[in-house]
């Protein structure tokens, strides 16, 4: 771990403190100065006792793409819930599954985490493995009918990734997305 100036460290910890205080306030369920102050104390104690590697920044939030992503996400959540529920109920049971690898384009820890989380909740896929270096995600697909269906699901993963990058990605990430779009999808040039 590299030693950083105290100011930078502090700046990286601020979002975490805000989040912890927010959780504390939500747990109490009401706003008061006492809650805020005790939340701050708890947050600082947690951060001092359990120092976490900070999530390196480069993430910004764009409201409109964020809403687009959230809208699709909620719809996907319902569709996938219904789909898997149907698989459990129907007499024939599960017939075919598949394991596929998908070449992603983003190169940021936080974004990859978000993509993996979102992918696990959208229809038909579950993250099995994530190769950080090569940015390859291995997925287990549950209801697959045929090869075309597999390809359709693979394309859907890339769509989810793109929505997330548009909502949260730094300019570099957006650039990487466009570059990868113009290249062939398979080969990412090695430097």
């Amino acid at each position, binding site marked *: 771990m590299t030693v950083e100036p105290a100011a930078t460290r502090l700046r990286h910890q601020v979002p975490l403190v805000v989040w912890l205080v927010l959780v504390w306030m939500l747990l109490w369920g009401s706003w008061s100065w006492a809650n805020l102050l005790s939340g701050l104390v708890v947050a600082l104690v947690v951060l001092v006792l359990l120092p976490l590697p900070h999530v390196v920044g480069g993430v910004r939030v764009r409201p409109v793409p964020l809403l687009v992503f959230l809208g699709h996400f909620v719809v996907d*959540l319902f569709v996938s*819930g219904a789909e898997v*529920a149907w698989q459990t109920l129907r007499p024939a049971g599960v017939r075919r*599954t598949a394991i596929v690898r998908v070449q992603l384009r983003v190169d940021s820890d936080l974004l990859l985490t978000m993509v993996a989380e979102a992918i696990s909740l959208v229809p038909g896929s579950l993250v099995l493995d994530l190769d950080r270096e090569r940015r390859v995600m291995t997925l287990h697909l549950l209801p697959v009918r045929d090869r075309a269906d597999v390809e359709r699901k693979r394309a859907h993963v890339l769509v989810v990734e793109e929505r997330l990058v548009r909502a949260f990605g730094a300019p570099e990430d957006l650039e990487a997305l466009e570059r990868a779009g113009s290249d062939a999808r398979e080969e990412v040039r090695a430097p």
Partner: protein
Amino acid sequence: MTAFADVLAYACLVAGATLCLTAGLGLVRFPDVLSRMHAGTKPQVLGVLLVMVGAAIRLDGWANAWMLLLVAAFQLLTAPVSAHLISRVAYRRRHVRRDLLLVDELRGAEAQDDAHRGDEPGDAPPERDGAGRAGV
């Protein structure tokens, strides 16, 4: 108005409970660990969310609603993580019904990558000529 809210709340609660039930059914009926994890994430998460929405409508006061919001948020964040860890271990220990797989792209890569091998005695590297039949 309250009657409408009540109906909405009950609908959410029943739908959520049903989805959780199907998640349990999936655990019993699905053929292998990886498929079961699908049942453990999607209908389960959606079911919990619906129950939370129903409860938030039914319970009075914001204090409860905030708590339910937290439950929902942590459910969304943690369910995929635990499902991922379990299915990853399952794959490495080869609790996979290969006969159900239409495509397995991890297997090709696995051959060059010993890290993906299972860690039971039976997972020792196969003999050269029998390589294609490992893990059945």
